[in-house]
């Protein structure tokens, strides 16, 4: 049941426990209890709203920073990651395989702000060997959702 609930609310966090229960043909209380448990176990770690900031007048700059680091004895990458994620500008941080170690997702008010953050905060951390900043020009699809696509039903209305 857990997987089914997660599949449903992953795409629509607004579904109430009652609605999810109806869709799954399950008991409402059971579904509500399961969601609560998954929140406690941190399987569900939050509820986000998908926003297409491109359509808002406020400027935002998104960037992906590829970072190479020197892992520390005993604590490996985790300790450095923890230092990095403390910054509110950091939207996400993944440990990667391949030619660099961390992929860091940054969001700032402007490209300059992001660049300054990398130069002043990120690069100066002890274990960081190098950074490479890539700015996002346009988001086409995010979290499985095609951004800014006006879904219009093209089917004939009665058939």
């Amino acid at each position, binding site marked *: 049941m857990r997987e089914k609930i997660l599949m*449903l609310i992953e795409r*629509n966090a607004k579904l109430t426990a009652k*609605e999810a229960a*109806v*869709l*799954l*043909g399950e008991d409402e209380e059971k579904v509500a209890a399961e969601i609560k448990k998954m929140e406690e176990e941190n399987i569900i770690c939050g509820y986000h709203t998908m926003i297409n900031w491109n359509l808002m007048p406020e400027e935002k700059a998104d960037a992906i920073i590829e970072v190479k680091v020197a892992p520390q004895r005993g604590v490996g990458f985790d300790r450095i990651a923890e230092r990095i994620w403390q910054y509110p500008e950091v939207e996400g941080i993944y440990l990667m395989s391949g030619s660099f170690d961390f992929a860091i997702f940054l969001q700032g008010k402007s490209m300059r702000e992001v660049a300054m953050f990398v130069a002043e905060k990120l690069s100066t951390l002890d274990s960081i060997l190098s950074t490479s900043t890539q700015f996002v020009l346009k988001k086409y699809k995010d979290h499985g959702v095609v951004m800014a696509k006006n879904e219009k*039903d093209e*089917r*004939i*209305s*009665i*058939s």
Partner: protein
Amino acid sequence: MRNPLSKTIESIPPSGIRKFFDVVNEIEGAVSLGVGEPDFDTPWHVRDEGIYSLEKGRTFYTSNSGLKELREEICRFVKRKYDCDYTVSETLVTVGGSEAIDIAFRAMLDAGDEVIIPEPCYVSYKPCAVLAGGIPVVIDLKEENRFRLTREELLSAITERTKILLLSFPNNPTGAIMEREDLEAIAEVCREKDIFVVSDEIYSELTYGKEPHVSIASLPGMKERTVVINGFSKAFAMTGWRLGYALGPENVIKQMTKIHQFAIMCAPTTSQLAAVEALKNGDEDIKVMRESYDQRRKYLLNAFEDMGLPCFEPEGAFYMFPSIKRFNMSSDEFAERLLKAEKLAVVPGTAFGDSGEGFLRISYAYSIDSLKEAMGRLERFINTLS
């Protein structure tokens, strides 16, 4: 000037769906629960295969009966899914299931032969039977039987002239299915009375019970007297590709192919090549879509219950068939008043036969959000009635 039209075609009334479509089209901004096709796009890998075939210039006719590779895949598909044994020479690729219905009747009927058609049902069977010179004999299916055909109903409709029994399960518009035992009782009568079956199983992949769809052709002694009609529209969300198929005894398929050859030549090549991909790698797509339909079905059943609209639980296709008998008005009147008051379009049950009186066909080939909006409108309307 003489009348250019044939008396036969003039005798056939226009489709009830079409009639209501014209009504809906005049209302601007109407929300519709009237469609008879999936809301999903054709899975991308299938579309991609179609595009690739165009890039490679594979734009020629195929053999009349369809690409051999496609027919082989169809045979594998129906073996895997419904345990039906067919060979490529018993398989014909058509332009949608609709063409297959037409040419099956034309290949099998002589003037005056009777075709038993259980209603409510899709709108094309009766006209196609008439155009082929047949005489439709309607059985009115009953809600208390969950809109399944019973042995007794069938027996009471059979005459000396009965040639074909038309079956369409899972059913449009009721969502009814026929399970193995139901079909066994019908098959026994067909064997005893020497009647052929044309079985339109276009919704066969969309059933929501524990048991998968059963094809009447898989029952003992039935393959030789059955033409199975199926296609890609519903299972793979491929309505616009216009691709279906017929499976049947070689002598029937051979004659159907003759008509198909003269009228159509062959089904569209692009669609055939895309369909090969759908059959080879599309099982997961079907599963995902089926689960989604099932959720919406449950959602509507619950919504109907909450607003006091009685509805038997449909087990197949993507339609609900709620009863509006307690409101003391005809299906037509209910649908038109609902459209005017709330701008919500549903199809009156009578579009699918007289026995659809007192019912509405509500399609759930829509997103949950659209269904939510529509149920709000329906409930508001019902509250103004009681």
